[in-house]
């Protein structure tokens, strides 16, 4: 048929505007399609009979013709089949299928649609919703997950009398259950469990644990532990969570049992002999695993051996110390999957693989080539005889290396290492110089992740990691990354403060200059936005704080004791005594709850560059909420920020001073708070104390909100840099001085990396670590309330 005739026929069967029809026709008559295909499309349209469905078909066909031309035939046939059962469902199919085809392959169209047909057999409307929701869901779910979701809905539909309505709601993602079921199924997400896992790790290890999500492996570098964003190996969410727990224990176990504290002088390890054996350069001593591996011609091989043994050692120690941890560990073992056949590996790789499996499962796997078996049997006794310290693992590694190096190709034959791990290896080992990179064994172990999920998550992760990296690298080590210190409105006096130098054990007199400035207020829009978005939280906080306002406390009558007489009650009691019916008894006093509040609170906020982005934003939000709370309770308060660089340039920003009213100006100032340069905490704290001590309140509180280490890396000539122990000790001293002035300090830190310095720096004061910055706006008022009521 020629195009003109085609166009005419199309116009007859549909109400679509000419423009669309023209586009369809021109697309159809480009060289991509055969005559048969064109006729097929037209026939499908005719067969539908229903005008609305036909129009939808033709409209959607444009996308199909343009972007999924190879799917045209399947698409039409499937549509026809659906139409046999339900026309409205077919219409929805046509409408949503272009979006769906972006996520699934054309071969999968059939299975997606056939579930829809089975649903349509029971309920047209439910089928329509099924098709409609599919497009949205397939963005994050794999098809198999979607089918599972759909089957659940079908089950609801088959359930009985009232079921149709419930099913329709289910498919429309109207019910929470449907939503959760669709989105997560039985998968466990790291994000949902990260706090629990972190606390678990911190409890068993007694130290800070930092968990980072990665896409599909797990491991640790001695500072953070890395785990996959989601696990879906077992059919139940709780079991998948327990797998996370097992991973956490295994990884944290390396820190507990000293995998990173290699000190070869503890055992009789003749380092010189090894160095001489291979002609490797010997540095002053071996204090790190990295240095240990570098002794060998093939460091990666040494590392691989070491890791297999060390993994076994840590598991052994964990099982010994924790009688109940075996269940979790078994879950881990059961998730093990050998992804490549032994015959696809080189000999060394195969030996290592079998060795790993033997140590993990306690017995050798079946069907091993005899050569491999011999080597493994030679290595096994060494592994089994190895002692309980990490140094023993090093010793055993050396002995096994000497066996394996006899195998041809051992010098160059790198252990099986997936490409992305190789990149990661270079990054971790080279630049940061830490012990060893994450366990590469893991990639083989994780079962298959659903492809669709994996894709979605990888994209998300790349975005997240990208953002995080950006924030870390706008770091203070590069002064060129700093914003210039701009002159602000109304510069005021300069104050000099001592600084504590822990190396000399004394103060450097009048070392710092603190310049007080007032922030130029921007528009109050930021504040108004916060009030709108967080209106529920603010209303709740205001209500709560108002209850503690002294004037709201009532006078209580008929008390057994009190400040004054309740005349009415006294008279009544006399009458009662006369009448012989004493009821009031001695309750003839009134009492007023005498809780006086005489509090001045200063909030000191870190405004340095490290808070740039969402941390600063969240701090500002929290401040607005806090102001609302404080206005409700009536305490006197001030808000200050600090930043600056060099000891002469500490900046102290006044956002709201005690006497100022909380109005548009203050709101505007909060809105304009920005992250600039560095933070010399000690000086800022001393100045804040200076301002607080002038207030006459009975109770004075200084709340310091910071996101991490005190750091001022812009050096003056010959001066100590404000970093490391120096800055931590100075800050600690400053807080001590604050306490000595009768001011009560309290520190809120949002350092997500949660490092050891915190307990040193805040040793003298009370503090709290808030893991999740986004919770700051709700936690800050709660903390304040706890402190002051």
């Amino acid at each position, binding site marked *: 048929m020629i195009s003109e005739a085609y166009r005419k026929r199309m116009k007859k069967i549909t109400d679509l505007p000419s423009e669309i029809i023209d586009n369809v026709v021109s697309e159809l008559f480009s060289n991509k399609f055969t005559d048969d295909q064109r006729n097929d499309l037209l026939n499908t349209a005719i067969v539908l009979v229903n005008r609305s469905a036909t129009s939808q078909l033709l409209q959607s066909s444009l996308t199909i013709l343009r972007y999924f031309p190879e799917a045209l035939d399947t698409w039409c046939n499937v549509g026809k089949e659906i139409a046999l059962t339900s026309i409205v469902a077919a219409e929805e199919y046509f409408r949503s299928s272009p979006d769906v085809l972006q996520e699934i392959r054309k071969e999968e169209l059939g299975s997606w649609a056939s579930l829809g047909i089975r649903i349509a057999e029971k309920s047209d409307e439910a089928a329509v919703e099924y098709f409609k929701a599919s497009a949205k869901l397939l963005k994050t779910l794999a098809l198999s997950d979607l089918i599972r979701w759909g089957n659940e809905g079908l089950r609801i539909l088959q359930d009985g009398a009232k079921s149709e309505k419930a099913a329709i709601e289910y498919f429309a993602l109207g019910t929470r259950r449907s939503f959760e079921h669709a989105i997560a199924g039985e998968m466990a997400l790291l994000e949902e469990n990260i706090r629990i896992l972190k606390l678990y790790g911190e409890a068993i290890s007694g130290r800070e644990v930092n968990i980072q999500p990665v896409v599909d492996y797990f491991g640790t570098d001695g500072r953070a532990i890395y785990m996959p964003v989601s696990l879906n190996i077992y059919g139940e969410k709780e079991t998948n969570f327990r797998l996370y727990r097992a991973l956490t224990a295994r990884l944290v176990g390396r820190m507990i049992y000293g995998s990173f504290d290699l000190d070869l002088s503890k055992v009789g390890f003749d380092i010189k002999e090894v160095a001489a054996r291979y002609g490797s350069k010997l540095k002053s001593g071996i204090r790190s695993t990295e240095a240990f591996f570098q002794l060998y011609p093939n460091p990666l091989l040494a590392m691989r051996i070491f890791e297999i043994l060390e993994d076994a050692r840590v598991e052994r120690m964990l099982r010994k110390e924790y009688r*109940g941890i075996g269940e979790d560990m078994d879950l881990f073992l059961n998730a093990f999957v050998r992804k490549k056949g032994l015959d696809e590996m080189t000999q060394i790789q195969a030996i290592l693989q079998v060795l790993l499996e033997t140590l993990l499962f306690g017995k050798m796997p079946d069907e091993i080539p005899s050569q491999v078996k011999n080597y493994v049997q030679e290595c096994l006794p060494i592994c089994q005889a190895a002692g309980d310290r990490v140094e023993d693992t090093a010793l055993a590694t050396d002995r096994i290396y000497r066996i394996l190096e006899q195998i041809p190709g051992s010098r160059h034959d790198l252990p099986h290492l997936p490409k992305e791990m190789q990149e990661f290896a270079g990054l971790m080992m080279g630049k940061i110089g830490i012990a060893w990179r994450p366990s590469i064994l893991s990639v083989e172990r994780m079962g298959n992740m659903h492809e669709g999920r994996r894709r979605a998550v990888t994209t998300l992760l790349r975005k997240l990691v990208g953002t995080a990296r950006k924030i870390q690298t706008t770091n203070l080590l590069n002064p060129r990354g700093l914003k210039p210190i701009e002159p602000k409105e109304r510069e005021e006096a300069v104050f000099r403060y001592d600084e504590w130098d822990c190396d000399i054990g004394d103060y450097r007199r009048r070392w710092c200059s603190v310049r007080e400035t007032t922030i130029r207020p921007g528009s109050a829009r930021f504040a108004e936005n916060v009030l709108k978005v967080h209106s529920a939280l603010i209303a709740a906080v205001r209500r709560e704080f108002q209850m503690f306002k002294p004037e709201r406390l009532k006078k209580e009558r008929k008390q057994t004791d009190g400040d004054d007489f309740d005349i009415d009650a006294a008279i009544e009691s006399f009458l009662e005594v006369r009448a012989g019916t004493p009821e009031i008894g001695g309750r003839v006093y009134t009492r007023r709850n005498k809780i006086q509040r005489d509090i001045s609170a200063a909030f000191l906020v870190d405004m340095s560059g490290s808070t740039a982005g969402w941390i600063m934003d969240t701090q500002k939000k929290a401040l607005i909420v806090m102001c609302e709370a404080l206005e409700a309770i009536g305490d006197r308060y001030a808000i200050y920020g600090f930043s600056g660089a060099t000891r002469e340039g500490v900046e102290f920003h006044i956002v709201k001073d005690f006497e100022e009213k909380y109005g548009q100006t203050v709101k505007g100032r909060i809105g304009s708070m920005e992250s600039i340069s560095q933070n010399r905490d000690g000086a800022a704290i001393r100045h804040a104390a200076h301002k607080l001590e002038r207030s006459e309140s009975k109770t004075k509180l200084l709340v310091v909100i910071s996101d991490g280490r005190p750091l001022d890396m812009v050096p003056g000539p010959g001066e100590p840099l404000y970093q490391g122990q120096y800055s931590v000790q100075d800050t600690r001293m400053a807080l001590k001085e604050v306490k000595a002035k009768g001011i009560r300090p309290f520190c809120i830190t949002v350092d997500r990396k949660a490092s050891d310095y915190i307990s040193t720096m805040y040793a003298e004061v009370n503090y709290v670590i808030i893991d999740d910055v986004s919770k700051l706006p709700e936690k800050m008022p709660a903390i304040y309330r706890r402190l*002051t009521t």
Partner: protein
Amino acid sequence: MQSVKYRKEATSWKIEEYFVKEEPYYREVGNERSIFEAAHSNRLPIMLKGPTGSGKTRFVENMAWRLKLPLITVACHEDLTSSDLIGRYLLEGGETKWSDGPLTRAVKSGGICYLDEIVEARKDTTVVIHPLTDHRRLLPIDKRGEVIEAPDKFILVISYNPGYQSILKNLKQSTRQRFVCLEFDYPPREVEVEIVVHESGIGEDLAEELVKVGEKVRNLKAKGLEEGASTRSLIYAGQLIRSGIEPRSACKVAITNPITDDAEMQKAIQSVIEAVFP
């Protein structure tokens, strides 16, 4: 052997006639007994400082038994008035009659007055004890226009739990410095095991595991837990285990549930328990 008293019926006593009849189990950690005795013989008041469930009350009971003194305990709270401590006039049958409060009765009978969690009480209540706690050892009863001289055997003991406190609720220096202060903390491991064995009746192996749970949970203090797991909660868990409750379940109700309402924290703590007990 255990300090849980088995009583078939309820008995009531006048508070100044309440003597501790049998030795309550107390495992000394340092030299706290001799300090208490020395303070007592020098007529000095004592402050016991430490987290909840660390043995303060048990210690006082033990000393009351040793010194054969009546023990009068007052649980302090925000609404506690000085009249609640000293006494008040009551209307009885058309007449007013003075009734001594627990502090007065302790003073008069020469016993131990134990003010538990004194920081909860209001400051105007707390100052009532000042004349009793310096060299004067006097209790003024303003409403009667009387003053009572405390006998040598009388001793005032207060308990105080420092920590994540409200800045409004603290002990003033003028009060604190009147006391000899004994600090209580979670005992060292072997001692805690001994205590748990004795108080709950379970075997040493199980007790060691309970103490391990306690240690690990205490690592979470300041990460969101206000207080670590107290020795008392470990003992409760042990008692439940002895009665046949599964360890995981016993620990959940004795340790995890009471210590926090935060679901995630509970799950983390329970995970530790599951690692320790199969």
